[in-house]
C-alpha cells in the first residue's frame, strides 16, 4: 500500500491524473496523515534533486568573475611548459595590440590634458549649491560623479557655457568622447569665454581616439592671443 501511495503522489504532483483522480486524491489527502507525509517527502526529494540537476550557469559565471577579482592575487601555479608554447603567440598579440592601442598617443593626451580646476563664482540662486558640489567633485577628479551632477544642471540650462564646458570635459574624461563633442561643439559655435577652451577640449577628444587629422584641424581653430594658443601650438608640433 505504501508503495502504491508513492506512485500515487508522484502522479498527482506530476499532473498525470484526470480530474476525477485528482478530486479523489485530494479528498483522501485531507485526513490521511501518511499520504500527507508522502507528499511532503516527494516534494522534498524533488526539490533537492533539482538543486543538483538544474543548471545555474548564469550564477556560476558571475561567481567565477568575482572569484578572480577577490581571490585572484595568488595566481594559480601551473606548470611552466604548457605555457611556454603560447608565449610566442601572446607576445605577438601584445605587440599588435600595442600598435593599435598606441599608448604613446595616450600619453600625449595625458601631457596635454586639461588639469585645471573648475572655478565656481558665487551665485545667489539655489542651484549654486549643486554647482559648488559638482565643482568640488570635478576638482577632486571624481569625474563620473561630477558628470552626473553636471548633467542635471546642463539639462536645466543648456545655454550656460560654463556648465556645458565642464560637463563636456567630464564626459571626455570618462571616455564618452562622442557625447562630449555634442556638448562642446555648440559652445565653440557660441561666443562665450569658453569658446576656444571648447575647441581645445574637442581636439583632445580626437587625440584620445587617435584621430590626428581632426585633432589638428581643431587645434588650428584656436587663434593667436587666446589662452589655449600656446598649448595648441605645442601639441601641433608634437603631432
Amino acid at each position: 500500500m505504501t508503495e502504491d501511495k508513492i506512485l500515487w503522489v508522484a502522479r498527482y504532483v506530476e499532473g498525470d491524473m484526470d480530474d476525477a483522480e485528482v478530486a479523489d486524491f485530494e479528498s483522501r489527502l485531507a485526513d490521511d496523515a501518511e499520504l500527507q507525509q508522502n507528499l511532503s517527502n516527494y516534494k522534498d526529494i524533488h526539490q533537492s534533486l533539482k538543486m543538483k540537476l538544474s543548471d545555474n550557469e548564469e550564477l556560476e559565471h558571475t561567481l567565477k568573475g568575482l572569484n578572480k577579482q577577490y581571490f585572484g592575487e595568488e595566481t594559480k601555479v601551473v606548470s611552466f611548459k604548457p605555457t611556454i608554447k603560447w608565449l610566442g603567440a601572446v607576445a605577438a598579440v601584445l605587440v599588435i595590440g600595442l600598435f593599435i592601442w598606441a599608448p604613446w598617443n595616450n600619453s600625449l593626451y595625458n601631457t596635454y590634458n586639461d588639469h585645471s580646476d573648475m572655478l565656481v563664482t558665487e551665485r545667489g540662486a539655489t542651484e549654486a549649491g549643486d554647482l559648488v558640489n559638482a565643482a568640488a567633485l570635478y576638482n577632486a577628479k571624481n569625474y563620473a560623479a561630477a558628470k552626473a551632477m553636471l548633467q542635471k544642471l546642463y539639462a536645466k540650462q543648456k545655454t550656460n557655457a560654463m556648465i556645458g564646458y565642464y560637463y563636456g570635459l567630464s564626459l571626455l574624461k570618462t571616455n564618452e568622447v562622442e557625447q562630449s563633442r555634442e556638448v562642446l561643439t555648440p559652445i565653440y559655435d557660441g561666443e562665450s569665454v569658453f569658446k576656444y577652451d571648447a575647441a581645445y577640449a574637442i581636439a583632445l577628444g580626437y587625440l584620445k581616439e587617435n584621430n590626428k587629422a581632426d585633432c589638428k584641424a581643431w587645434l588650428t581653430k584656436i587663434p593667436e592671443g587666446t589662452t589655449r594658443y600656446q598649448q595648441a601650438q605645442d601639441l601641433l608640433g608634437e603631432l
Partner: protein
Amino acid sequence: MAKPVHADQRYLIALINNDAGLINEIYQKCAGKVKSFVVFNNGTTNDAEDIFQEALVDIYNQAKFKDLQLTCPFEPFLLLVCKRKWLNALKKKSVLQVTNSEDDLLLIGEDTFEQAEQLEEQAAQADLFLRAFEKLGGRCKEIIKWSMQGDAQEKVAEALGVTYGYLRKKKSECMASLVKLIHLKDRNND
C-alpha cells in the same frame, strides 16, 4: 514558530536573480574573511575560493528550490557556512590541527547556527538523493534530468521526442522508483 525574515534575505534574492551588484557586495564583505580563515588553517587561496563559491551555490539552491528564509544576518551566516565547510574538508583530509575559532563563534546568534546546520544537512541530503538518482535506469535519468532544467514541460517532451502525456506518466513512474530507492536506503541505514 514563524520567525520574521531578516532584511538580509535580499542577498538570497540577489543570488536567485544573479544580481551582480549585490553579489559583489557579498564578496566585498566576506571574501577576505573567508580567505584569511582558510589560509590560516592549512588551506590555500584556491581552497578558500572553492569553499566560498560552494557555500554561495548551496545558499542559492536552498533559497531557490527550498524557499530558505533567512532569520539571521547574512554575513555571519555565510561565514559560518564557509567555516563548517572548511572544517569538514580538513576532517576528510584528516588534518587535525585547526586553530580554534570559538571566540568569534560566541558572537554568533543561535539562529545563525541553526540555519547553517540546516543548510549543511539539506546539502548532504541532496547529495544522498543524487546518489540514489544515479542508480536509476538510463531513460529515467534522462527524463528526470531534462524535466528539471526549468523549461516548460511541453518543450522538454518535444526535446525528448515524446508526447507531453507520456512525459508526465514516465516521470511519475521514475520519480516513484527514486523515492522507493531512497526509502529502502533509509530502512537499511536504521
